[in-house]
């Protein structure tokens, strides 16, 4: 038995060529009344989307911004109609799309609860019965007789949420509304969802909180550009979605790096053979750029992930190799390789070079390759930048690449800081947890 069924649903939004500003007069004068009502441009928000939500299940719709999630929800809620295909919903729906839509600012919370309840399909008597529950749920007992315009946005949302959830719908549609309150309120909302599930009601959740999807949902569908990209077990769908998001980030990081390198190149003085040798006056303030005599030149840089593939996105704990291709114009016996790792705030997370690590240079000639390997990238999630350099032992720069290379570290754990030391927790048997933890 399905509570919601979408069969080959397409939704095409029409963009009217300047219709927004078309006037009745011009429409009449040009006899274009009918023509203006016809679309000049169309935008497919959903294309051939099908999914079924079995009764009593909790179902998630995930996807990037603009992927059609909200449109899908509006179709299910019946607010808009599909251009093609069919949408079928069994039972009463309550949509938590915009909380407190229809609250009138001038009248009291109490009166708004009644009117909002009636809008959502309750009778006066049903609201009377549930009124205390609603007010207690919203934690607004003291303020319920104050006009809603005096409420904070949090109070407003809580009251809206409380009314909507007490409508006792058969199908509850929820869009990113769990962020309406503090921790305590969020937990209450989650408890309410669980209660819903226990009572065999259907919940359709549209969210970016992927953890919630994995923990709460029985099924998930992933929309991408208005099409179903994945469907099924939430863990699997979320995994596939995250991979796609990473690929997107990968491209972004690659583009950032390419742009930085290109700009650094463009800043070189025009006269060949006389590249900027001088270091910026204050190394700690230097912005991204490139300088040095180029007697030894870094000709190529690649970041390699644990699988041996070039990448710009890494996971905490993964292996990271930085491969430099260098070229010495003349053989030299005075050289050092250095790297610096910075986080997005510009804090140097780590810096080293072959000189401080007491490697005595003997000879470098022609083309060479240098690899710097970090076996376990113990950084927390974030964007990081690299300094890479070849210089003399006294610091005279051959080729200094400042913050030109960007990469991203991803982590499923929400720990904070910069560095994640390898660690473990140990407990005496009197301390117990329900789950074994994410097992870092």
């Amino acid at each position: 038995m399905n509570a919601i069924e979408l069969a080959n649903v397409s939704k095409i939004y029409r963009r009217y060529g300047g219709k927004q500003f078309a006037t009745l007069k011009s429409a009449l004068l040009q006899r274009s009344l009918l023509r203006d009502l016809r679309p000049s441009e169309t935008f497919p928000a959903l294309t051939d989307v099908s999914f079924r939500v079995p009764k009593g299940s909790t179902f998630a719709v995930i996807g990037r911004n603009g992927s059609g999630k909200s449109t899908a929800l509006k179709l299910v809620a019946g607010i808009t109609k599909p251009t093609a295909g069919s949408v079928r919903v069994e039972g009463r729906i309550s949509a938590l799309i915009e909380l407190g839509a229809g609250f009138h600012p001038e009248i009291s919370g109490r009166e708004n609860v009644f009117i909002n309840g009636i809008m959502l399909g309750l009778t006066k008597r049903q609201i009377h019965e549930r009124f205390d529950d609603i007010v207690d749920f919203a934690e607004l007992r003291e303020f319920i007789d104050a006009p809603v315009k005096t409420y904070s946005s949090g109070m407003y949302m809580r009251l809206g949420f409380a009314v909507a959830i007490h409508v006792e719908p058969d199908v509850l549609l929820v869009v990113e509304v769990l962020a309406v309150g503090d921790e305590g309120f969020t937990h209450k909302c989650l408890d309410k969802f669980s209660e819903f599930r226990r009572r065999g009601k259907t919940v359709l959740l549209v969210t970016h909180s992927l953890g919630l999807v994995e923990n709460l949902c029985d099924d998930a569908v992933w929309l991408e550009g208005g099409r179903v990209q994945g469907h099924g077990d939430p863990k699997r769908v979320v995994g596939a979605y995250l991979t796609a998001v990473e690929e997107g980030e990968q491209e972004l990081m690659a583009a950032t790096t390419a742009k930085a390198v290109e700009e650094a190149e463009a800043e070189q003085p025009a006269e060949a053979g006389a590249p900027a040798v001088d270091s910026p006056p204050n190394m700690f303030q230097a912005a991204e750029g490139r300088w040095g005599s180029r007697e030894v030149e870094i000709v190529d840089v690649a970041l390699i992930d644990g699988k041996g593939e070039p990448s710009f996105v890494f996971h905490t704990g993964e292996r990271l190799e930085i491969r430099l291709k260098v070229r010495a114009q003349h053989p030299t016996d005075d050289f050092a390789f250095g790297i610096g790792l910075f986080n997005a705030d510009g804090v140097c997370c780590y810096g080293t070079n072959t000189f401080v690590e007491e490697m005595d240079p003997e000879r470098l000639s022609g083309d060479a390759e240098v690899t710097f390997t970090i076996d376990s990238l113990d950084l927390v999630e974030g964007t990081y930048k690299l300094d890479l350099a070849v210089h003399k032992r006294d610091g005279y720069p051959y080729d200094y690449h400042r913050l030109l290379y960007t990469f991203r570290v991803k982590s499923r754990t929400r720990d904070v800081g910069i560095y994640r030391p390898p660690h473990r927790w140990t407990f005496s048997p009197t301390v117990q947890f329900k789950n074994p933890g994410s097992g870092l």
Partner: protein
Amino acid sequence: MFANLNNLFRYRGLIWSLVTRDLKARYRGSVLGFFWSFVNPLLLLLIYSFIFTKVLPNETKGVQPYGVFMFCGILPWTWFATSLTDASGSLIAGGNLIKKVLFPAEVLPLVSVLANMAHFCFGLPILFLFLIVSGHYPDALDLVWFPIAVLVQLVFTSGLALILAALTVHFRDIRDLLANILTLWFFATPIIYPVFKPEVRQYKWLFDLNPFTHLAVSYQEILFFNGPIGHWRWLLALGVASLLLFVAAYWLFDRLRDSFAEAV
């Protein structure tokens, strides 16, 4: 469509609570509060009386006092005109509801009409008071026609309100256009002049085409003039026409319904 019309009856609880909300919210925070619903028409009546007795004295026979005569037409006209103005913007003002909640859009223009009807009703005691003070006791038999006139006006106004609300979503200029049309319409209706003026008689057919003429004249005959109402045939004909208009308007509204959530 008739299923939807049936729904309209189901929404009566919603309509009722929205109308009371509008009325409550309107005077919230003002010192006189609900009392304004009586004070407003009273002040209007006093102003008209002053103008047409002192500033521009109108001595036309049979319509004295002139202020009270005009008020018989102005009160229903105010209901009519403000209803249409409110209704034409109602879907846009209620955009949040239409876009975010499954909400029967036709409720909004009807609430505009009904809320203004409430204000009309609050003005009636003032009107009756002045009628009695000035010696125009409405005939009891005539008064039977009064609710009928109100009903006809309600259906007529609701029909127009639905059309305007639906079209304004697509053509925003209607709101500005409407304000001017209503001003013209007001002066084209025998409200501040009696219908039996020779100039009006000359173009009687033109005035007969104006639906509000029949409402205004009916109100005047029921409330102000002595003798039985002579205009009842017109009133009933308008009633039938209004019903047809309402059904047509509802059909149009229903046709455009799906475009509201996107165009608002």
